[in-house]
């Protein structure tokens, strides 16, 4: 093999390698950080996600609006590119949506998975019905009152925007809450604060551990205010 072919193969190999890395765009390995310093959560690269969702979904697909009766579903996962998610207390469990790139699925375990490119989602939940609430929002706002049962898990993850949420927990249940922000302010109300590092707030309420409610709220850039109320 000639020197030209060797160099050419090297160019081809490194170009393909670079292109593959650029497409896979790996999570930055956020190394370092001494003891006590919270490491930011590595962000999955855009190639590791469904390419059509983060890049195109906010502008792709036809606009749709409607209503989903949650029925006996105990879990709700909302994945939204950009927009607003609001929670309310009500008598029946339902979701009202308006936006683009709408998809919905139900798992056998009783969890409803709602995915949208951009738009608004209004979630109405009766007290004590939900055991799992998960919201993944790239850009926008999550607000309102979300009643949950015990045990339950509430996870709100916003890339850029605000969380201003009141979580209504059953009386007597234990609560562990965690609010963090990469760039901005994080606050927890209604729980006993546990000192930690800037940008991260932990809190807890003593109670029945068998009905533990775990709350996690994370914002990349923006603000977090989570209030815990006993029902």
């Amino acid at each position, binding site marked *: 093999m000639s020197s030209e072919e060797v160099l050419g193969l090297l*160019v081809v190999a490194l170009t393909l*390698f670079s292109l593959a890395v650029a497409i896979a*765009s790996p999570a*930055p390995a956020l*190394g370092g950080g001494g003891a006590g310093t919270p490491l930011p959560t590595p962000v999955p690269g855009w*190639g590791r996600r469904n390419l059509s969702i983060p890049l195109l979904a906010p502008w792709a697909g036809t606009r749709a609006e409607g209503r989903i009766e949650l029925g006996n579903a105990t879990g709700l996962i909302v994945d939204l590119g950009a927009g607003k998610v609001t929670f309310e207390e009500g008598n029946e469990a339902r979701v009202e949506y308006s936006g683009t790139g709408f998809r919905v699925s139900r798992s056998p375990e009783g969890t409803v998975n709602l995915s949208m490119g951009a738009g608004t989602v209004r979630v109405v939940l009766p007290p004590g019905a939900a055991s799992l609430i998960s919201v993944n929002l*790239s850009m926008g706002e999550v607000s309102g009152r979300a009643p949950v049962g015990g045990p339950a898990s509430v996870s709100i993850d916003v890339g850029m925007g605000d969380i201003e949420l009141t979580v209504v927990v059953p009386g007597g249940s234990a609560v562990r809450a965690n609010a963090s922000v990469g760039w901005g302010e994080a606050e927890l109300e209604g729980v006993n604060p546990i000192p930690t590092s800037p940008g991260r707030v932990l809190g807890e309420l003593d109670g029945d551990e068998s009905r533990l409610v775990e709350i996690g709220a994370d914002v990349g850039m923006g603000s977090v205010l989570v209030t815990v109320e006993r029902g």
Partner: protein
Amino acid sequence: MMPWRESLLEVSHRLGSVLLHPREAFEEMISEGPRLALPLAVCFALAFSSGALAISAILGLLPPLAFLIPVAGPAAGLISAVLTLIFLLLLSVLIHANALLLGGSGDFEAILAVLAYSQAPDFLPVAALAVSAILGGIPGLSWFLLGAALGLLSGLWGLWIAVVGTGVSYGLSSGKALIAAFLIPLALFVVVGISLGFGAWWVVALIVLGYAVAFIVRERGGLPSPEPVPAAQVEEGGGDEVEL
């Protein structure tokens, strides 16, 4: 030998020849007729990768903004690739005009291929950026800086390829090729950049007018007119410059 292996070796040979012996490689390209697919594909891949990786690497170093990578990475890659191709087209037009005014003769496709090939040395800094994006943090930063340093090297390498390719494509001496492919474009970019900074769009119009006048004068015999490159001189090639 398997067909794909033959193709891969041919592509590798072509790229390696351009990087190591651009004069011989471009003389062969001119005699065969320029083919744009390979150089433009390499150029597009490198430009996309460099744009996406540079943004990913920079955002990866800023944890609060790392969540932007999913959108900013591909967007920067596409913008970088499109801008690079537009820049190549504009530069090709400019060098083509310069070369003709300096008495050269050649095809526009050839200079476009030459300029696209001249981006090939970027495989070094782009690969360093890829490693930087994989590692992230402090190790990633060192690879990012290495990529920036390699960028200077690849820039000089690419300039050499572009000047040699311009000389071969238009039958110009090295000096004239340097003027056509580097000095005039550099001077014009500086002048246009400063002028646009002050909002003086008329300077661009003046430059275009200047080129138009120069071509009219050339047509009337006031400037050296193009002559066909003797086939024998092209084929002999070697390291000799062809002065027409």
